[in-house]
């Protein structure tokens, strides 16, 4: 089905291309020679031990992190140092964080309409209509006028997903979206993400939810020590991992057969 993008060839439907991306914190190298191409509506699951650089990698895509070497192109826009390119990319790339990061002094609805009004210049009534439609889609429309602190963790994360969707992004980045949740709330967030995947959203998910990876990923990418070690379709990735590090990692996180 999907082709491992060894050479990162750019085709017409390439949504994200990373070529030779390297990043250092001082002398410590966090990303080494990252090459990755993601096609429109492709779903990627990124996994790996903590400190392997997977969060840093996706945070480079919307310029929350800088990188020192290499190139990132998102939907045809070269993510250079100029602010305009950064703004353009961020308008098209939504992000969901581990800690939700909802704005606590605004209602859920205000959280959802702020960026469309300020950044896309959408009139408030239209922004609110979109927000209500998307809150309905993540099944928390009845919470629209509450403040984040009044919601459960799972509801907050679904509100955060709706907030990102209100910008009508072409790509969604998920940075360990279920890691801060109580176990009984993981499913409602994963179901929301599965729904999004079914609708054809381009997604890169940093997650350890391997059931989710099996179900929706086109490719699973395994990282360790800042490098992409292995990438494969989920079937192959879980049944026949090639590298020792991958086998060891899967042995640690998967229930033993």
């Amino acid at each position, binding site marked *: 089905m999907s082709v491992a993008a060894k050479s990162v060839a750019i085709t017409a439907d390439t949504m994200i291309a990373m070529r030779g991306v390297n990043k250092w914190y001082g002398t410590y190298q966090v990303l080494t020679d990252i090459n990755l191409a993601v096609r429109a509506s492709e779903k990627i699951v990124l996994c790996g031990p903590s400190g392997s650089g997977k969060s840093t990698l996706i945070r480079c895509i*919307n310029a929350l992190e800088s990188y020192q070497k290499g190139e990132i192109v998102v939907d045809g826009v070269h993510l250079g140092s100029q602010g305009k390119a950064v703004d353009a990319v961020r308008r098209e790339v939504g992000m969901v964080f581990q800690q939700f990061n909802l*704005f606590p002094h605004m209602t859920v609805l205000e959280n959802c309409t702020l*960026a469309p009004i300020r950044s896309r210049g959408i009139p408030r009534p239209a922004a609110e209509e979109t927000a209500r439609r998307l809150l309905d889609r993540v099944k928390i429309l009845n919470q629209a006028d509450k403040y984040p602190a009044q919601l459960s963790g799972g509801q907050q994360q679904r509100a955060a997903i709706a907030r*990102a969707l209100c910008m009508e992004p072409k790509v969604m980045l998920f940075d360990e979206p279920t890691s801060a949740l109580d176990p009984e709330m993981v499913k409602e967030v994963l179901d929301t993400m599965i729904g999004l995947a079914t609708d054809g959203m381009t997604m890169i998910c940093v997650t350890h939810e391997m059931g989710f990876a099996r179900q929706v990923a086109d490719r699973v990418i395994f990282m360790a020590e800042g490098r992409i070690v292995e990438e494969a379709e989920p079937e192959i990735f879980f049944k026949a991992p090639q590298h020792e590090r991958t086998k060891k990692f899967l042995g640690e996180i998967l229930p033993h057969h």
Partner: protein
Amino acid sequence: MDKNQFLFLLSGLKWTLALSAIGFALGSVAGLGVALARTSGRRWLERGAAAYIALFQGTPLLMQLFVVYYGLALAGLKLDPWVSVSIGFTLHAGAFLGEIWRGSIEAVPRGQVEAAKALSLGYLDRMKDVVLPQAIRISLPATIGFLVQLIKGTSLAAIIGFTELMRAGTIVSNQNFKPLLVLGLVCALYFALCWPLSLYGAWLERRLVTAAR
């Protein structure tokens, strides 16, 4: 103490209030600028703001008033006493409020700024809609604490001849030779201004702590 002397004290109180209000209002504008410069991530702005804060936090308020009042006059800049005293208090309040608000801006969790950036909100929108509303809440107890200091600090303007509450008290007690009564009354007036503010600040702080739980 006769009625006229009491009314004279009240007119002094009026100038104390006016000076505090001007110092606080203009100082807030200056302080906001300083706090934003201090958190801008631009090295020169940050250093400039830090130097300004260090200078005004590290020297006595009385000295600052002297320099603005006499120093500028010696330098050939003849200013109305009102204007020079207002400039003095504005610069003073700007430094302290700037430092209080810098701390509050930095106390807003990093994830808030990151979420705003990820939503492609620009710097002004991030500050205005996301960071400052949260920072102001965090800063309220300390800000009110500084306002109390500022109100009491306006008494130093008496030394350069500005007839606020403190100087009005000195004048009256020199007339009626009842310093204990007059200055006691002056103290009571300051206390009546400052104590409710302190109580309000403490109440806000308790409410913030419970809200954070």
